[in-house]
């Protein structure tokens, strides 16, 4: 009988020369990606996992059994009801943004499974598609039962089907990153930058946070997903290695573009969870510390390894790491009825922790929380509107997220006039990305332009209910309705140091 190594490549890396058609007809550049290289240039493509289909099915089956057994043990509604309410809202945020984005990744992987330029790449992408289907189904399954308890969990499925402002931003990113990208761009953007750079390690961090919060189900889910991510993300480095040799400028462009694009969404989803929605007693490190320890060091080493430079805006990124998710959280807290999860108001102890973790930026942010806190004191519990904005906010014409770039002292929004149309961006990198491929982005209307065109209502209640698909039962509120024990103490009695 043949040994595994003797037959494996017949199953996973088997290419042949075409005699009836040209390779360019089988792999058209528009579908396979740029640069179009002869197959001899891709021939050395390989990844370290080298999995056969039988091994894949066997391993995935074991993972499914493991998730199922944890679900049976700790996946009941009463298990979730026992969790800290803030953490439950981190779950709602992740649950909504994760599963249908993963489903879009099925499409991206399937495109690579057909149009990737080497058979081993196509094989791994096929497994990647199956992985992402699993990552769609697990959260949809686990959160479905919770809808009976809390209708905000309905957004696990509903989110990407709505015109909620976060969903518009999410789709703008996901459509380009996962649905529209050719296999080369997909491999660099999704497999290398997003998965290798951010989510693979993020899942390790989130799994640890979930354990601290006593959420064994979420811990198991993200841990199980991470093992898949670790495998199929290896497509990225393998493609990048060849791309850097053949077209280093394009490789650098894709890196610069996608690091910024994915960072913004990542910062919102993960920054909120780590620095605000995880109960203070369970926080082991700040979002910034997590990024520095788990993401930045590793990512910079990888770039060096491939002969790539850090993105040109690296210093701006480091500045944003200090402050961006705080800017968005404070803004979103005061527009919480526009989203599908609840927000925690940072109290004196949380603010002291944030000051310690973010000594450079927090002094500018703390007055905002002092103002919100004073208004809660004045209104008393339950009066949500008194700490809620009513004026339309502004959105970036690239990332479609709110204009929260920079600091309270200096917002980094940038304007641009192109062919008689005005655009605004949250940051210089967003403007730069837009200017590199304007035809790709120019026709997309941000929410403000939809309102001005009469396509979306200007009145906030109408916008929230008719356009964002929220109801009084599902729109976001303060997680405690303003009924915090520390709020009953006199102003300044426990002021942050």
């Amino acid at each position, binding site marked *: 009988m043949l040994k595994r190594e003797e037959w494996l490549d017949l199953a996973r890396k088997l290419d042949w020369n075409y005699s009836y058609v040209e390779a360019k007809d089988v792999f058209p550049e528009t579908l396979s990606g740029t640069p179009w290289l002869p197959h001899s240039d891709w021939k050395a493509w390989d990844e370290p996992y080298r999995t056969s289909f039988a091994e894949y099915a066997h391993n995935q089956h074991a993972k499914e059994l493991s998730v199922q057994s944890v679900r049976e043990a700790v996946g009941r509604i009463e298990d979730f009801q026992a969790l800290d309410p803030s953490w439950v809202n981190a779950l709602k945020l992740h649950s909504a943004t994760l599963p249908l984005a993963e489903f879009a990744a099925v499409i991206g992987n399937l495109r690579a499974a057909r149009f990737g330029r080497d058979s081993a790449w196509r094989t791994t992408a096929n497994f990647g598609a199956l992985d992402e289907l699993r990552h769609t189904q697990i959260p949809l399954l686990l959160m479905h039962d919770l809808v009976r308890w809390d209708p905000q969990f309905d957004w696990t499925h509903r989110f990407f089907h709505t015109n909620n402002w976060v969903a518009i931003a999410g789709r703008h990113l996901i459509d380009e990153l996962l649905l529209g990208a050719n296999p080369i761009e997909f491999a660099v953007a999704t497999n290398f930058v997003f998965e290798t750079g951010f989510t693979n390690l993020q899942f390790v961090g989130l799994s640890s946070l979930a354990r601290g919060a006593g959420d064994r189900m979420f811990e198991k889910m993200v841990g199980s997903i991470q093992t898949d991510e670790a495998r199929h993300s290896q497509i990225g480095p393998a493609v990048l290695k060849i791309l850097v040799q053949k077209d280093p400028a394009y490789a650098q462009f894709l890196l610069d573009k996608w690091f910024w694009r994915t960072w913004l969404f990542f910062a919102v989803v993960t920054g909120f969870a780590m620095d605000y929605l995880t109960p203070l007693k369970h926080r082991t490190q700040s979002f910034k510390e997590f990024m520095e320890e788990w993401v930045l060091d590793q990512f910079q080493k990888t770039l060096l390894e491939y002969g790539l430079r850090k993105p040109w805006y690296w210093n701006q990124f480091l500045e944003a790491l200090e402050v961006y998710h*705080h*800017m*968005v959280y*404070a*803004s979103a807290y*005061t527009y919480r009825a526009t989203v599908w999860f609840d927000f925690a108001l940072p109290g004196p102890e949380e603010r002291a922790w944030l000051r310690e973790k973010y000594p450079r930026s927090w002094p*500018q*942010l703390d*007055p*905002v929380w002092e*103002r*919100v806190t004073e*208004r809660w004191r004045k209104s008393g519990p339950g009066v949500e509107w008194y*700490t*809620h*904005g*009513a*004026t*339309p*906010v*502004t959105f970036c014409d690239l990332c479609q997220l*709110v*204009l*929260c770039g920079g600091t*309270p*002292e200096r*917002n980094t*929004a940038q*304007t641009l006039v192109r062919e008689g149309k*005005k655009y*605004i961006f949250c940051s210089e990198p967003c403007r730069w990305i837009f200017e590199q491929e304007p035809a790709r982005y120019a026709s997309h209307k941000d929410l*403000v332009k939809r309102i*001005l065109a009469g396509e979306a209502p*200007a009145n906030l209640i109408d916008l929230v209910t008719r356009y964002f698909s929220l109801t009084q039962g599902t729109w976001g509120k303060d997680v405690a309705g303003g009924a915090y024990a520390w709020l009953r103490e006199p102003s300044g009695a426990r002021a942050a140091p």
Partner: protein
Amino acid sequence: MLIPLYGFLRGDTIGLVILAQDTDTIREVGAKLQEAASVRVAPVSAVDVRYRGRLLDPERTVAESGLEALERVDVSPREAT
């Protein structure tokens, strides 16, 4: 005529849409932004309004100041002279 502007108030965490009229004075524009952001930033009695770095005369109107729809204006507490 309605002139929607992108307003950025110093001390705030987000840009807001100011629904200004072309007949509004710049002082009124500043007041509208302060009111809209008052959940996060306490209003002050006097503010400066800048457009492309240029300090605008508070008594002039939006139209007289040359502001058009979807321009960025920056509002900050008036600096002591």
